[in-house]
């Protein structure tokens, strides 16, 4: 699956779509593949203040429990509650299944995110 160029990425395998001061966050195809079947999502509460590189939410596959780290600091303004009933959406369409929307606190953090091309090269380097 190609990494869409309309958004930014982290080396923690998250994608971030920036719209004004709102960042929509999800996990990449590489991430869902590595996690295998996601069967449980513990979403962040709306209103929660998250810090860059600290826990945003928890994803559980059949065999593992994985923290997803916030790619940016800010306030969680929305969480995708549909994922609670259908966590498999994260496997089936990772680039549509967003997890949370964060109101960006510090715009300079956006500059630390990487472009699709650089992320794709990074993933390729992991696979070889």
């Amino acid at each position, binding site marked *: 699956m190609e990494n869409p160029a309309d958004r930014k990425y982290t080396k923690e395998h998250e994608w971030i779509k920036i719209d004004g001061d709102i960042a929509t966050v999800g996990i990449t195809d590489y991430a869902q593949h590595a996690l*295998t079947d996601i*069967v*449980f999502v*513990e979403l962040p509460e709306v209103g929660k203040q998250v810090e860059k590189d600290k826990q945003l939410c*928890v994803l*559980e*596959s*059949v*065999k593992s*429990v994985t923290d997803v780290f916030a790619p940016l600091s800010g306030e969680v303004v929305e969480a995708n509650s549909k994922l609670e009933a259908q966590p498999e959406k994260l496997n089936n369409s990772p680039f549509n299944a967003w997890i949370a929307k964060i109101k960006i606190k510090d715009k300079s953090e956006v500059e630390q995110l990487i472009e699709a091309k650089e992320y794709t090269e990074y993933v390729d380097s992991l696979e070889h």
Partner: protein
Amino acid sequence: MYLFDVGQKTALFEEHQRLGAKIVDFAGWEMPVYYSTPLKEHLAVRGKAGLFDVSHMGEIFVTGKEALKLIQLLVTRDCSKLRDGGMALGVMCNEAGGIIDDLIVYRFSEEKYLIVVNAGTMQNDLNWIEKHAAGMDCAIENKSGKTAKLDLQGPNAEKILQKLTEFKLSGIERYNFVEASIAGIESIVSRSGYTGEDGFELYFAEEKAVELWNALLEAGKKFELQPCGLASRDTLRLECCMALYGHELSEKKSPLQSGYGWAVDFEKEEFIGKKALEKQKADGFGGKLIAFEMVERAIARDGCKIFVEGKESGIVTSGSFSPSLKKNIGLGYIGAEFSEPGQGIEVEVRGNKFKAKVVKRPFYRRE
């Protein structure tokens, strides 16, 4: 001990890599955890068929005039009832009634038995067996390194295996075995497994592993046979409430508390741990193994605490999403007074308590 830092590999390691398996360390062995995904492999075994490389497990042969005497001393179950070609699941206990290992005893004849044990406990088991065999008229032969073991499990297992043998497999009843040629390879074939489905466990010479593995995958193509890793093996056994050593079972647990009461034959004259277990039976024992299902949204995992009415009362030993039931399930130990099905409990996951309830074992039984 630098040389032993690298995990041991089964004869099929390169085949697993070729199939794109994700490899993990398990009990010192580099084993496939999944090839496709754990969920797909689990459902393949329930619906079609799955093939597992479990060559890491231990095979110990006991032969001689006093072979049965030794086995009767070591194993809590009465193995004198076995006929040739019969097998029994059971446990081996220490003097205090703690479980040294869970195992399978295969009887070839009155003077020849095979004991199949877990990989992680094999050396310890062997030491224990040899210690008690001293002075007895019997020989112990550890064939663990030289024996490959493949488990072919699922509703299509018989159809697949039948393509590779002249032996009429429908004649083998559950928990019985034969010695037969499979794809030209001399094998021990038992109708048994660790998944709750119909299926076979195959034991044969390690150097034939690649040949038989590929013959089975080829014969299984028409029957949607899926190579399966340890992840699905774990969720399959969990749904059937089959205990796993290191999780439900340990030297700190007795068969009476861990759901193995049926494997303790008190009528048997003597076996190691008998006195301690008789005392437990009379006086009661601490925690008891329960199966539970989550009522609130959370997955319990090994080590999570169990609460009853706010008071810490037990611990989870295995927990997962159940692919067959689409529920979150688990096994754990709890005070015996709270172990009846229907009992409400709470399980602590990441600092929060979630409602769950004790249910009847097993979660899953094949129709």
